[in-house]
């Protein structure tokens, strides 16, 4: 590769090494002796007391992977390499919403170093999703957000694959995109997935009679709360390797957090029996809900089948943001009826979930969000209505709390609004209404092992809540 170095008078190889602060090298001759990788690991292994006690539960036991993490010995997907392995990259949509007229991969295929390309038409069942299978593995007729993949390339290196992506020609017919969740919920908005509405999931929870108790209570509070789109940011980007063997069996190493359902999804998209798939999860470098569904595994499997080689793909940080799922933004209208003594008697809640382009884990998010939305309080009259709607934005899915952080922001903010109006201490109003053992949840479930008041009291004590009061 020295030929790629421009020759410069006097400045040959030594110029490269010239750095004023460099230490002089006196080991120059030793490089002729081949050495192994410069790695030394301890031959003494950990003996932690916390792992040796035969009363195991309650111990602050160290993790078996703790030492490996610290040594840099943990193998994540990107640390795994197979002989003859090649690398894949995915081309993303240029539009938030458009028809795909044509995809021409010929120029990419003709590039030296490119082994194969793949488009959505080549995927046996080009759809997936944990609740609704409304998401294409690679979009082949319509793109519904900028993160949709439209074609993939497998090449000798990431560098060549990247270059090849720029040679793929995709013709689009742009459509009018919808970005606003309220607009998309409206009656005359265009239908992102066809049908007669952009609402694709809803939930109602009804207990008692809210309207009647609003009429009878001492105070009614009404507020709207909204939350934003948030990315998981696992430090390890999504990564997978697929290797299709001569028996027609494919092995996939993936950063997926749920391999049983992952294998089902992959079998469905590839239209092969589950027994023909081996899915291996390694240590995942951060999940938080974002690695709970398949992404590029079917693409890599098919590229491996086409090329006969193991194929690896690691998302760039940009891919991670635009094409993996993120947290649902909520628009939440809260109306709460309260008596003068702070007793909550009624709560009516309307929630709109910005679902982004595809359903993903919205079913779980709308369910948990709705059930939890009245808060951990004894409220006899509850009415919750929640709707998830499509927009042409990044796909929202599972993220730590499935809607709970959003509704908690609303119900706990409003608790303070109420407390202030009634001249009550925030701790006092919470203790007054808090669930305890035997409380009835918004879905009329009898609750057991409720430790809410204990947590309120202990946290207040540790914080010095009563002492710090003005």
């Amino acid at each position, binding site marked *: 590769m020295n030929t790629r*170095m421009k020759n*410069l008078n006097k400045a040959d190889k030594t*110029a490269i090494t010239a750095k*004023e602060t460099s230490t002089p090298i006196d080991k120059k001759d030793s490089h002729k002796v081949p050495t192994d990788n410069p790695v030394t690991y301890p031959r003494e292994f950990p003996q932690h007391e916390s792992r040796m006690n035969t009363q195991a539960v309650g111990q602050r036991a160290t993790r078996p992977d703790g030492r490996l993490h610290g040594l840099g010995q943990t193998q994540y997907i990107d640390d795994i390499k197979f002989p003859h392995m090649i690398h894949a990259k995915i081309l993303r949509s240029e539009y938030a919403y458009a028809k795909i007229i044509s995809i021409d991969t010929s120029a990419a295929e003709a590039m030296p170093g490119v082994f194969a390309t793949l488009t959505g038409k080549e995927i046996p069942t080009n759809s997936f999703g944990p609740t609704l299978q409304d998401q294409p593995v690679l979009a082949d007729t319509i793109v519904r957000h900028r993160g949709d993949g439209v074609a993939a390339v497998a090449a000798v290196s990431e560098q060549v694959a990247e*270059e090849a992506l720029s040679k793929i020609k995709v013709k689009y017919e742009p459509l009018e995109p919808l970005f606003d969740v309220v607009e998309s919920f409206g009656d005359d908005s265009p239908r992102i997935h066809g049908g007669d509405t952009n609402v694709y999931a809803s939930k109602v929870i009804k207990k008692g009679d809210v309207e009647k108790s609003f009429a009878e209570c001492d105070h009614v509070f009404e507020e709207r709360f909204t939350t934003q789109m948030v990315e998981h940011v696992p430090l390890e980007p999504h990564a997978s390797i697929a290797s299709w063997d001569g028996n027609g069996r494919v092995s996939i190493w993936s950063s997926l957090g749920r391999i049983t359902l992952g294998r089902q999804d992959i079998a469905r998209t590839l239209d092969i029996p589950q027994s023909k798939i081996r899915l291996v999860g390694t240590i995942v470098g951060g999940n938080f809900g974002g690695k709970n569904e398949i992404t590029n595994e079917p693409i890599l499997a098919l590229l491996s089948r086409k090329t006969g080689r193991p194929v690896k793909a690691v998302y760039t940080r940009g891919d991670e943001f635009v094409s993996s799922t993120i947290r649902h933004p909520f628009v939440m209208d809260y109306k709460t009826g309260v008596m003068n003594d702070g007793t909550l008697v009624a709560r009516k809640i309307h929630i709109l979930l910005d679902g982004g382009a595809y359903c993903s884990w919205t079913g779980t998010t709308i369910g948990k969000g709705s059930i939890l939305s009245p808060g951990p309080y004894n409220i006899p009259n509850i009415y919750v209505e929640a709707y998830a709607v499509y927009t042409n934005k990044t796909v929202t899915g599972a993220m730590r709390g499935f809607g709970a952080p959003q509704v908690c922001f609303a119900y706990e903010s409003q608790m303070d609004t109420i407390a202030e109006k009634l001249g009550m201490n925030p701790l006092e109003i919470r203790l007054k209404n808090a669930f305890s053992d035997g409380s009835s949840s918004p879905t009329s479930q009898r609750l057991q092992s409720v430790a809410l008041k204990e947590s309120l009291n202990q946290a207040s004590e540790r914080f010095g809540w009563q002492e710090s009061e003005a």
Partner: protein
Amino acid sequence: MRPFEYIAPSSAEEAVALLVENGETARLLAGGTDLVVDLKHNAGNTNLLIDVSGIPQFRGIEETSKGVRLGSMTTFSEIMASSLFQEKMPAVIDGAHTVGAVQTRNLGTIGGNFVTCVPSADSAPSIMVLDATVIVTGLAGSREMPVADFFVGPRKTALKPGELLESIFIPKASLGKPSAFLKHGLRKGQALALVNGAAALWLDKDGKILEPRLALGAVAPVPLRAVKTEAFLAGKSVTDDVINEAAELAVSESRPIDDFRASANYRRQIIKVFTQRVLKESIRIARES
């Protein structure tokens, strides 16, 4: 990254020759904290990197009878470790300290930061208030200009084709001048500045402001010397009214933009508050010294 060639010349003359020979297809590599990122996103027509970071002429911090010469390839960490800066220009250290994180400061150079020429360059304001100049070198020899003249527009400097930033010069008169640096970002660690600013001034024995200097970053297309504000402050006694009026003037001299990080309106508020604070801080330092 797309392929390119790499050369590390050992002298400024060689670097200039390479730059002239290769024209726009060559780019100078200093620390690389901006350039390497750029190349990863879009290499454009770059096919040669000329690594000037090790050229002795561009390195080092020296005090002479006239002032301090700061080699353009000095890293932020080297500035922070310099006892000369610690003793006589602590605001420059504060500015350097807010550049990225440790790893960035170990790699990034002050010259690279200047040449990248983003409006929010954290190293610029605290240097500008010291009446510093830059020395550029090229085929036609060297020339010197005030730092403010070096910044022409966003990502655009006064460097002509074939010219390199050789060093920054801080005049003796500015050494030990009471000064302060402040930055407002979207978070505490590794933050890009929404507004940064530095002030330097002397107080005479009656407490009047002498030779006031105020520089603000991220408030205009380039790091800005607030010359009207400086003129207003000169010779004034320190009162709340004076500081408030100066802050309003600084706002009027600025041309903040609306972008996804903040609205222009909000930036104006921060400029006002930060001008007040950085002036008060430099006055406090002046009173203590």
